[in-house]
Each structure stands twice: as structure tokens, then as C-alpha cells.
């Protein structure tokens, strides 16, 4: 009986294994590609996590969903003085968070806020359009370098290149006004990001970002998460014009 059972079970396992292998192959083949054969990220995407509240692991508070965090190793290597500022930011977050003033949220924060964004891809330019304050990113993949600077931009300057099937985006020229989340995690104008976009299958992007800022952190550190494709029929970006809801809303202009 036992022998009979294993005789039945083993072929089943082999079949399942073969199916899984075939499934992966089909999955890879199913990754959409552009005319140049590069993975095609065109579509509407959104992160499904709680990094917008806190990029580190956290339990729930009123109005704050719990989350496992997106920081690899969960530690952010702040320099000592910067850690004090992060703690002060957290204490003062209700008024100090730049999101409360409806400023452009910067990168990578905008990539995981709870609003959809849309990617249009051509060989020389990847355009990202965001529902939140109709922000945009133009990512030049034409081999050009960052313009000379320093330039204080809210969304930075992004230049992309392909490493195999991974789109690697290098960004500098940020200002020091934006945060990473609602928990007060911050950076300086020396922020340098390397983002890596790769398709796991047609509907999932593995998104990783390496954060470097020698004024604030003792070493580079990394976040990673999945971006999910919206598949609802006829879905389109709408608008979240954050600053236009209240006629008396006049937060201070950054100095």
C-alpha cells in the first residue's frame, strides 16, 4: 500500500514541478516588451503598502495602518545629529510634514503614496504621471547626463539606463524640503537615489531604491517593494489637487 502510494505521489510531484517550471517560463514570456525588446512598463501602477505613513515597520495607531516596512533590514543609518532631527520631525509631524502643505512630495515618497500613477515608455523617455498634485517625472533614457548643478528641484533630475531587463534610474538635484514618509524620515539636498524597476511578470514591478545622502546617513541604505498594475477596465488617473480644496488654505512658502 505504501509503495503504491509513493508510486502515485511521485509522478504527481513531477507533474506539478514541470507545471511550475513551465509557468515561470510562460510568465517571463508574458512580460510585455517594447519595439526595442525592453520590458514595457506602460500602464497604471500603485504601491499597496503603508510606507506612505512610515517606511519602517510599525504597529497601527489611530488613522495609521500597521505595516511591515519597506526598509531592508528595517534600520535607517542616520548620523547622530540627523537622528535627533528625525525624532523632532516625528514629534512635530502634524504641522512639519511637507505633505500638509501640499508641496510636490519628491522621490521616492511619491512612488508609494496611496494614489495611482501611469507610465508611458518610449526608447528615449519614460514619462511618469501621478494623480497626486498632477506631479510628473521625465526620465531620460537617451544616454544624457544630469545637467550641471546643484539645482534645487522638488522631484530631482532622473536619468535612466538599462541593465539587462532592469531599468536603473539615477536621480540627483533634489531640494531639502521633502520627506520620505509621514513619520519624519528626511534627507538633505545631497540626496542621491538609484531606483531599479524590473517586471516580475506582466502585472508586478519589483521596485528597489538605494538612498545615499552623506549629510544625513552614515552609509547608503535600501528600500524595496512591489508595485501592482491596475487592471480595472477603463481605469484612468483622476485628480488630487491637494491645495485647492480650501479657499483659506495658504501655508507658508519655503524660504
Amino acid at each position, binding site marked *: 500500500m505504501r509503495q503504491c502510494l509513493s508510486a502515485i505521489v511521485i509522478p504527481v510531484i513531477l507533474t506539478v514541478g514541470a507545471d511550475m517550471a513551465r509557468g515561470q517560463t510562460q510568465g517571463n514570456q508574458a512580460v510585455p516588451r517594447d519595439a526595442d525588446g525592453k520590458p514595457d512598463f506602460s500602464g497604471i501602477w500603485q504601491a499597496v503598502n503603508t510606507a506612505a505613513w512610515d517606511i519602517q515597520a510599525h504597529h497601527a495607531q489611530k488613522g495609521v495602518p500597521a505595516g511591515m516596512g519597506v526598509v531592508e533590514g528595517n534600520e535607517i543609518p542616520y548620523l547622530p545629529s540627523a537622528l535627533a532631527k528625525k525624532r523632532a520631525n516625528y514629534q512635530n509631524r502634524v504641522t512639519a510634514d511637507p505633505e500638509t502643505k*501640499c508641496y510636490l512630495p519628491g522621490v521616492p515618497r511619491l512612488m508609494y503614496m496611496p494614489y495611482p500613477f501611469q507610465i508611458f515608455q518610449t526608447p528615449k523617455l519614460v514619462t511618469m504621471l501621478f494623480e497626486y498634485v*498632477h506631479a510628473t517625472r521625465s526620465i531620460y533614457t537617451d544616454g544624457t547626463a544630469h545637467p550641471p548643478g546643484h539645482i534645487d528641484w522638488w522631484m530631482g533630475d532622473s536619468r535612466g539606463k538599462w541593465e539587462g531587463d532592469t531599468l536603473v534610474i539615477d536621480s540627483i538635484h533634489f531640494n531639502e524640503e521633502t520627506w520620505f514618509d509621514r513619520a519624519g524620515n528626511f534627507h538633505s539636498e545631497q540626496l542621491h537615489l538609484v531606483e531599479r524597476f524590473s517586471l516580475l511578470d506582466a502585472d508586478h514591478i519589483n521596485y528597489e531604491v538605494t538612498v545615499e545622502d552623506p549629510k544625513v546617513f552614515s552609509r547608503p541604505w535600501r528600500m524595496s517593494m512591489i508595485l501592482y498594475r491596475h487592471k480595472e477596465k477603463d481605469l484612468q488617473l483622476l485628480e488630487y489637487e491637494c491645495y485647492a480644496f480650501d479657499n483659506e488654505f495658504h501655508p507658508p512658502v519655503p524660504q
Partner: protein
Amino acid sequence: MVRPSVGAGIALVLTSTIIVAAAARIAAQGPPPPKNPPPPGWIDPRNPPKEDPNFKPSRTPDGQPNIEGQWVQASDIITYSIEDPEAERAEHVALGGQRPMIGRPIIDPPDGKIPYQPWALKFAAFLHEQHLKPSKPEYLDPVSRGFQEGLPRINYQGAFHIQQFPNTVLITYDYHHSYRVIPLDNRPHLPANVKLWMGDSRGRWENNTLVIDVANNNDQTWLDIVGAFHSDALHLVERWSITAPDHIVYIVTVEDPRVYTQPWKLRVDYRRQPVDEQWESAVWEGNRTADVVLGGGRR
């Protein structure tokens, strides 16, 4: 990237012809000629050159007439006033030393004025009176407050890029990182209760003309700085016609049965330019206009 509002690559040859033709037309119809000289290559929206009916545009790989690239208006239209830009802006030009802009974009009705209903004419006059020293924030030009332009105003604000994809046209504007995603797949408009600053666009090609139906507009945008307004019944039909290799004629029919007595039309001509990178145009983040105009630490 900030660019001059009148592009390079302008058809200098046409200038003298246009001026002569414009003078003849003005003499016949009565509106006063521009007091200030037109810029080189100006295309008068109210007296444009004839189009070549046999022009065949190049095509995108999926067969759309190719309108990709960077476009800048050749009509010398300013968002300050679409009814009477020269007179309205005379004071600002004198103070600031800017070049006067003379394009009058309203081509129908022929007097170049918005055909307001009687009550709306009064309200437009009130907003006009308020616009320099508004008594409430909502009587200040919404763009001066840092809000999105809406349509059709964004189309005479500055340069923009068009990218074409199968079933979609994408317009990204230099000013305020505004964008429009225009589906060409015959999907219906959003439910009527959904209102948007930039409206809801649905496009289709009719020969060499991209026809875009724009609904779901909110009632918060103005058509110029001096208070030309509409309600959220605003409905637009835009016709973007490529009439020469680097020339788009844009004619929009503006309809709002709650505010206007009849549909009216506005025209802008665009020239295609070499494509520049679009650099950040943050507007809300550094805007002090509301502070200056409304006064007293409002921002």
C-alpha cells in the same frame, strides 16, 4: 523648460502677406487694428493664412497623423485677457516693460467677445473689477493662486509636448507640469458628477484632425486673468488639425448653456519646434501671488 511664447522656425515669408490681408479684413469688419506691431511670423487667429487642402501628414507607426513633438503658439495670445489683450494689459506693459501681446483668439462671434448671458456679463464685469484687488480669495485668478489652468486656457499658456501611443495621445505642458491623457478608444466620459480641473478628454481622429471632447470640467477655472468664467456645465470640442508639416491649427468650440448665449470659438496656431527637455515647473510651492494680492500674511 521655459521657452519664449513665440517660437523659432516661424514663416517670415508670410508676415507681410498676413499684415496686408489683416489690414484689409479689419477695414471691412471694423475691429480696431493692433496698436502695437505684430511679432515676426505672427499668425492672426482672426485672419489666418489659407491652408493647403492637399497636405498629407506623416504617420505614426500605428497610422495616426503624426503630431508628436514640441509645440509653441504663433498667435501671440496671452492669458491676461482673451477679449482685449492690448488694452487690458497696457498698464502692466507700461510698468514692467514687457512686449505687448496682440492676438485676439475669439474668432466666433466676429466681435471677439464672449457671448455672456445678461447675468453672466454682470458677474464677469464684477470679477474684472475685483481681479486687481479681490475682496475674497476666490475672486483672484485661480492660476495666480497656484491652481491648474484648466481648458482651454492651458493651451495658450506656453509650450507643450505631444506624444502618441496606440489608442492614446499624451500632452505634457511646460507650465505647472500639467498633463492630459487622451484615450482614443471610444470609452465613455466619466459619470457627470465627477468634476476635474483639467476635464475629461476623449479623442478620435477625423482625417488630419484630432477631435477631443472635453467634459467633466469643474467651475473653478477661469479663461484668463481678468475673470472670463464658465460654470461646470462647460463642454468643449477641440479640433487639432495638422495643416502643414510643422503647423497645428487649434479651434475649440466652447459651450456652456448656463453662462453663454451661444457656443463660441477660439483659435490658436502652433509651430513645431526641436524638442527640449521639460524641466520642473513647480508653481504652488513658491507662489507668493496670493500673499501679495490678498495681503496681510495670507501666505
